[in-house]
């Protein structure tokens, strides 16, 4: 009792002490946050300037004569909707495929007994540790052999299979209490039924995290799309934007406008699904 009340007193005094000094912490954080968003602000301002104004010295802060010429140039020179569709469809294919395949395998590895389980899982782990470049030559050859170069499936297929996804889902199923599963079994549900209607719904938070991480990776990916779309068909936005830069290297307003428009969809998704993004990153630490 005494120790409890002591702790409460200490906690509240600590809280008050925190509150008092808090404006100083905010001051530092605000400066840091401003530095972080300067590139975005500069990008937005530049996208409304003329090409002449962009190269003037000293730089003008706000557009002297706001114009949407940059946006027009972007939409005229880049098949935005076609590339947006490629990006979006390959993202959806990857997310759905990866969630289903990873959840099935992850559940089997976490909860079912079968011969060779440890060896098979070790193989998955091994692939998790290898940098993606080691797979690219072979994956390219395979896509080429199947005649899939410059098509949507070539963009999406390798991303559908992910040792990382299997690992993440296995972790999710392992931490679940066994009681529900046993109850379902006692009620006569088979393996698939137990998986589908009892375990899978409980794994929803991790599925959301996996879906969000896969989306982030799929939307941002540059190297693989660059490799499998040599002819220029079925290019996603990343490759299209890079190609546009090669063509309009110094038309900064158009480049900034394009960069802004291609970034916007994922930023909007992020603002809506913040929690899933943060949980996904925190639970896995996936980078790039």
């Amino acid at each position, binding site marked *: 009792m005494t120790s409890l009340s002591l*702790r409460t007193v*200490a*906690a509240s005094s*600590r809280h008050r002490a925190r*509150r008092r000094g808090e404006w100083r912490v905010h001051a530092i*954080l605000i400066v840091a*946050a401003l530095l*972080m*968003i*300067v590139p*975005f602000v500069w990008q937005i301002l*530049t996208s409304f300037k003329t090409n002449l104004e962009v190269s003037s010295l*000293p*730089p003008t802060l706000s557009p002297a004569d706001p114009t949407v010429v940059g946006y027009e140039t972007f939409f005229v020179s880049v098949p935005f909707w076609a590339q947006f569709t490629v990006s979006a469809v390959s993202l959806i294919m990857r997310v759905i495929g990866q969630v289903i395949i990873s959840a*099935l*395998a992850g559940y*089997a590895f976490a909860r*079912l007994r079968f011969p060779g389980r440890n060896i098979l899982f070790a193989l*998955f782990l091994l*692939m*998790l*540790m*290898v*940098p993606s470049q*080691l797979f*690219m*030559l*072979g*994956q390219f*050859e*395979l896509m080429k052999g199947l005649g899939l170069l410059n098509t949507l499936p070539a963009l999406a297929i*390798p991303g559908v*299979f992910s040792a990382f996804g299997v690992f993440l889902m296995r*972790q999710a199923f392992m*931490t*679940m209490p066994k009681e529900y*599963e046993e109850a379902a079994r006692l009620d006569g549900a088979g*393996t698939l039924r137990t998986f589908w209607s009892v375990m899978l719904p409980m794994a929803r938070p991790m599925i959301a995290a996996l879906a969000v991480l896969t989306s*982030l990776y799929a*939307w*941002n990916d*540059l*190297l693989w799309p*660059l*490799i499998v779309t*040599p002819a220029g068909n079925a290019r996603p*936005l*990343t490759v299209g*934007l890079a190609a546009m*830069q*090669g063509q309009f290297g110094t038309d900064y307003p158009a480049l*900034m406008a394009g960069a802004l428009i291609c*970034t916007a969809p*994922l930023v909007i998704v992020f*603002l809506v699904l*913040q929690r899933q*993004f*943060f949980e996904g990153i925190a639970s896995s*630490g996936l*980078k790039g």
Partner: protein
Amino acid sequence: MTALLASPARRPGRRAGPAGRVDWWAFAMIAPAFIGLAALYLWPFLSTFFKSFMDIPAFGPGEFNGVKNYTNLVGDDAFWRAFRNSALYTALVLIGIPIAIALAALIQQISRGRGIYRVLFFLPVVTLPVAVGMVWRFILNGDFGLFNWVLSLLGLPGQYWVADDRFTIFAFAVVGIWMGLGINLIILGAGLQGIPEELYEASSLDGAGRIRQFFSITLPLLTPTIFFVTVITVISALQMFDLVFIMLGSINNTALAGSKTIVYLFYEAGFVQFRQGYAAAIAVVLLVVIMIVTAIQFRLQKKWVVYD
């Protein structure tokens, strides 16, 4: 790799399912993942090894040529330049970690507005790397870039950050730090959440100030997370490609020749010049480099990471 490192934080349940009974459904459930793994990961992985010992022309079958690709690589100045660039970039990007630790600790201190800061710091993570590269190429432009203009206000000389290969790697590092901060912040923030509040209360009663608490409680208890963040930062920095391609490669910048990273060299050899054997050798060397660097970090962790 990354998730493996994170696993000690979570406690998996019991390993086996219903004791004793083999469930043959397991094979059906694993089959799709395994077929994909075998065809798209295991086989390509092995074939990259084979290819690294072969001479493969753009068309037609390749032939075995021993360690020729590797000896060529060792004798190739471009490779050593790329190796140096990747190493320098990786070292520079590590500067972002203390920044992320400081910001994560500050965000932890405040009682309101945490969400807003997290969102703002995370924005670069959800921005297309291609777009990031384009924006920073403009900001770091030597003639009319914002960065040089700010420097001139401070009385400092500007440079051709993205057109002079003495500076390009530093430019990439600034962008890399900016891009990675949000991820590190979230992971470190999760680590901070795991530090028991009682420890701070006890040390408050002992009269410890906030700065002292940071160094005597927060920092030591955060070392496992810092270690994790360091390992994944190094691994991803060693694989950096996007920024070189966007800021220099896609626009034929003359500084490109001296600014290539290992993965850029791999891309160029494998998919522009179609020297697949050579590209395979580069990829294998990259794997070995990453393995060595990671092993060294695991060795060194005993000296500074606090596990309770």
